[in-house]
């Protein structure tokens, strides 16, 4: 909680600096919740234990309601921001978490993600103590997330028993590894682009000149490559 409060204290004055930014962030939250709802619905479909199915489904409905609440607050905060029509949907993206993680890790993921969400919302509720409508929204949602935190860990322990701790640890490690890889990929991508740009400017000119001279681009019908009639020609 202290960590979240500290992060919010540092970041919020920038991230939530005016109504336009608040509306934008609320829309992003709405999209996240809606995406989460789709993931929970898919989990309900793929799960075979009836009790878990029901819980995932209820969770999906909660997330869907949260998405709607965020969207309504975004509209109220900055009327007219959602320009096309009042029916413009929030674009939600599913991550196929249940299929990718399996039951144990999915439950562990839900528990940890919802716990983070609850703490984040409580910190934001405190941050917006001068904006009662926002404070109330975040406090309400934090209370509701608590149910998700609890059911996920209870069922993880019930269904997986001794493996529960391993699943939690696995999700934490995977999450950190993903973040590390994401950063590494971003840096690697930039370096690769820079290298390729240098190659383009200093190595390619002579080949480019030759290409333009020897094989200028021409329109019109061309003979096709050899027909594919045998496996060797594939």
């Amino acid at each position, binding site marked *: 909680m202290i960590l979240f409060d500290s992060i919010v204290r540092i970041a919020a004055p920038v991230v939530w600096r005016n109504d336009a930014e608040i509306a934008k962030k609320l829309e992003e939250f*709405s999209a996240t919740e*809606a995406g989460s*709802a*789709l993931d929970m*619905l*898919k989990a*309900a*479909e793929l799960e075979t234990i*009836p009790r878990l*199915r*029901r819980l995932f*489904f209820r969770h*999906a409905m909660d997330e*869907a*309601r949260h*998405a*709607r609440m965020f*969207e309504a607050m975004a509209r109220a905060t900055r009327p007219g921001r959602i*320009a*096309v*029509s009042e*029916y*413009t*949907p*929030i*674009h*939600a*993206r*599913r991550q*196929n978490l249940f299929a990718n993680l399996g039951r144990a890790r999915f439950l562990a993921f839900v528990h940890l993600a919802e716990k983070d969400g609850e703490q984040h919302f409580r910190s934001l509720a405190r941050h917006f103590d001068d904006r009662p409508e926002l404070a109330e929204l975040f406090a309400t949602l934090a209370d509701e997330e608590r149910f998700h935190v609890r059911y996920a860990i209870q069922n993880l322990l019930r269904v997986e028993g001794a493996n529960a701790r391993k699943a939690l640890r696995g999700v934490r490690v995977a999450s950190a590894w993903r973040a590390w890889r994401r950063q590494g990929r971003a840096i690697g*991508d930039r370096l*690769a*682009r*820079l290298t*390729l*740009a240098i190659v*383009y*400017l200093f190595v*390619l*000119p002579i*080949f*480019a000149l030759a*290409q*333009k001279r020897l*094989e200028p*681009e021409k*329109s*019109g*019908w*061309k*003979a*096709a*490559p050899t*027909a*594919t*009639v*045998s*496996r060797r020609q*594939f």
Partner: protein
Amino acid sequence: MRALGISAYFHDSAAALVEDGVIVAAAQEERFTRIKHDASLPLNAVKMCLDTAGVDMRSIDTVVFYEKPLRKFERLMVTHLREFPRGIGQFSRAMGTWLSKRLWMKGEIARELGCDVEKIVFSDHHLSHAASAFLCSPFQRAAILTVDGVGEWATTSIYRGISDADGSRIESLGELHFPHSIGLLYSAITAYLGFTVNEGEYKVMGLAAYGKPRFLDEFCKIATIAEDASLSLDPRYFAYAWHSEKSFTSHLEALLGPARVPGTAFDLPAPEGSSAQRWADVAASLQAFTERYMLVLARHAQKLTGETCLAMAGGVALNSVANRRLMDEGPFTELFVQPAAGDAGGALGAALLACHVVDKQPRGAPMTSAFLGEEHTGASVRRFLDDCRVKHTSFADRSALYKEVANRLASGEIGGWFQGRFEWGPRALGGRSILADPRDSAARERVNRKIKFREPFRPFAPAVLAEEHDRWFVPVSQGGDHTTRFMCSVAPATEEARLKIPAVVHVDGTSRVGVVESGPLHELLLEFRARTGIGVLLNTSMNLKDEPICGSPAEAYGTFLRSDLDFLVLEDCLIERRPKWN
């Protein structure tokens, strides 16, 4: 022989499984991942194909990738050299992916699919399209046209397909090369009109009906059609060969006026002189030019091949308005269009090519059904709804379900319709559909704005009983029509249709007809006709704007909750409206 065809790494990745010449299953990856036009290796689609056949990867004899990556790489390199130095952005952006991944895709495919690397072979992009058209068609001989943005080098190809006792052959008779492409012209204008490339082309086609082709002369400056039906684009107007994000230049805007900023409201019909009307006129001009070119191309193909039948594939073959003109005014008596004419269809073509052309297997029955996707049984749907405690009515007697749904539709309700396997290709043919009463033109407005959240100018298609087609829509003037089964062409609406089913007649008086010959939708149409005297329903795909069509019950339920649908039918269960999400 079992051949698994795969398309991936560009857009619309897909997998298709063909077993002894019979198409067992085929699906786009986006239906599973819910990422529109997903380009990733179609692992989920492959799994579905294998599960449907009840086999694993060890039973697959050949895995055929739909194009040749090295030839594509060659084209990219040559283009970068030709466009030096302005192509620096595109070069540094694209080459990283190619050098680190794409060039080594054979290993990645083998690793990810868990198959022997020796089993993986590479077809040619346009040849895969050609195979998907000809080998699914009812023709034993045909001219084949494949027209799209670009494959390896080819943008437009003419083939002759022959099937006889010696198997099947597909002979190439010529091809046009990048950057001269009617598909890329269409895409560039799609971007100019503020829509997303590879996604908004069909919006441009719908928009065209609101305009007049007053920019046709300008389009003749942009693109020249030679006497031999070759097309040449003036590179001054296009940036797709070198720019990493834009596909047109300021010259195009100087010629046609300022481009539309994406997201700008489109209120049509618009007053003369307005920007919206100009954009509609640009769309109409592009459409007219495309139709003109397709007719020229078809005549050239007929002259080269001497055939009477035509099979088509490639993204441009999804232009249903042009297809109708080909049937009415073109030189061929019969036309077949592959329902998944875009890149996804390449997966099917690649697999069919391996079976019929390379392995010389005899051809079976032509493709008459596009229901090749995943199936969810009534029992699994009921269990899902029961476990989740979703209030629903289960119909043990299917005919009672059809009666109930027909009553609801006839009383003005709009419903989701989820039955059997999902469709192959971008059209909803009654497996994953949203249905409404076509008699009420307000239904169109409601479906656009409140259910699918899409642009108000976009039309809706009718699903019509086969036996009622000619009552509502003008049949083709000559030969056989193999396109309406898969909604691949439009037809002029009859006077009676304009009066009685206005919700499915576009502003230009045409409809993209889907003929229904059998299955649950056929039964529903019969019930609807019994109540209204009309064997037609408004039929649109079950998805929200910019999302893939639903594949599974959970996705259908998610769509139901986020829209204003009055009811949802999942197999034999009917769910009524609950409060919507957002």
